[in-house]
């Protein structure tokens, strides 16, 4: 048997051995399961992406329809003093409901995920969650805010916060994740002074130390808040 033939057989044997180990490893770790998991997961992700696309389209359509209605009402108001007076009342109500964009002095509170603490597996305190955002929004309204938005989503009198770890869902919008920017227009000095108080937002401040979550406060002479672009229906409420 030639030397080359022996080498060839040895190489084939080594490759066969490696293949055997791989196949055994594959079977042992149930490699088909991750493949199925991946397919299922990808299907779910695709569903979420499709629904978010529809959501975005609907919100753009709502914003466009509201602008068209405003223009039509404006044209009607040119023709009648009664309509003009009503239009003025509704404009004020719409502004307070968050249906029109506003700007003015204010404060931006930036929130960001921290670092998971070592030896504290399963603790999600390093993630910014919906209750953090809810706390900041409530705090700002209680200390001089006239309007608030979160990552470009305007808060209304009926706004609700929900979500799971690390995700923040506001009203009918898609989930938001860190970094979160809470912008408020109102009494800038009062809001800034309240936020500077070390006793303000105790849970966030505690996690700022334990998990290094980001809590940054920036004052501004002119912040812009967008109009609310989702549903504001109250089908179960009657006023008479």
């Amino acid at each position, binding site marked *: 048997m030639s030397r080359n033939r022996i080498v060839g057989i040895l190489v*084939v044997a080594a*490759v066969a051995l*490696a*293949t055997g180990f791989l196949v055994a490893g*594959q079977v042992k770790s149930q*490699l088909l399961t*991750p493949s199925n*998991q*991946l397919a*299922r*997961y990808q299907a*779910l992700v695709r*569903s*979420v992406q499709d*629904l978010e696309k*529809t*959501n975005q389209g*609907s919100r753009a*359509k709502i914003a466009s*329809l509201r602008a068209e*209605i405003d223009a*039509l*009402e404006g044209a*009607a108001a040119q023709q009648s003093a009664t*309509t003009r007076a*009503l239009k003025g*009342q*509704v404009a004020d109500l*719409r*502004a*307070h409901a968050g249906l*029109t*964009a*506003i*700007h003015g002095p204010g404060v931006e509170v930036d929130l960001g995920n921290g670092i998971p603490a070592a030896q504290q597996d399963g603790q999600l305190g390093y993630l910014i969650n919906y209750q953090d955002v809810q706390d900041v929004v*409530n705090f700002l*309204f209680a200390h001089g*805010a*006239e309007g608030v938005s979160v990552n470009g989503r305007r808060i*209304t*009198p*009926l*706004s*609700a*916060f*929900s979500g799971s*770890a*690390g*995700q923040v869902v506001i*009203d*009918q919008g*898609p*989930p938001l994740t860190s970094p979160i920017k809470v912008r408020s227009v*109102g009494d800038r000095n009062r809001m800034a002074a309240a936020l500077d108080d070390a006793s303000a937002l105790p849970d966030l401040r505690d996690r700022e130390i334990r998990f290094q979550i980001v809590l940054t406060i920036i004052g501004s002479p002119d912040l812009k808040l967008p109009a609310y672009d*989702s*549903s504001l*229906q109250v089908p*179960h*409420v009657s*006023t008479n």
Partner: protein
Amino acid sequence: MSAPTRRSAPARRRSGRAIEIWLIALLVALVATVQIRSQAEVERSLVGTDTTTLAFLIDDLHRANDALSAETADLAQRKTSLQSGGSSAADQELAAEANRLRAIEGLVPVHGPGLVMVVDASGLQALDLQDALNNLAAAGAEAIGVNDHRVAVGVPILQTTSGVTIDGAAVTPPWTISVIGDANRLSIAADLMTQQMRADRRVRTATYRVQADVAIQSVITARPYVYANGS
């Protein structure tokens, strides 16, 4: 000119064996690559979001998109009405809109189907009340009153040395929370909330009852903007 050289039989065999070895090596590399990439993709995509969370997210997005569709249909109908009706149609639309917005902002008394929750406890904080109200809002609450104080996002609920205040007024337990909205959705949330509250040692009782007509007479005082300007 010499004839083209032909490879000998042993040389052909050696060449065939080399191809076989390369094919096997290629196959092994392929399997290993697919495997590693597949697992890496699973790990990367699953970071922070499990399938259960995604399923809940899909459910929420479906509900949100349904609400957005209803709003779109309503706005389209209002637009058509304005396009065809002149200033009298505009007056009607604007009066209805003003009425609706006053209800949303808590400026007028309201009534409708919903539920009344009663929580008797000692030591509950403003944050507990804020969380409870947010849970009800997330379940579709359209108007809320607590012990005859109207609440909405923007109304300050604060912790003071003497207890919880709503817009500066003390709210002592028991808290009677009146809610208007879809009674089915609200009662699912109320069920969970009262169960959780009863497990809290500070809570003496936590109950709720669904009502066909809940009346909320209290209102919020309108505050004009001082700092904000329209764009």
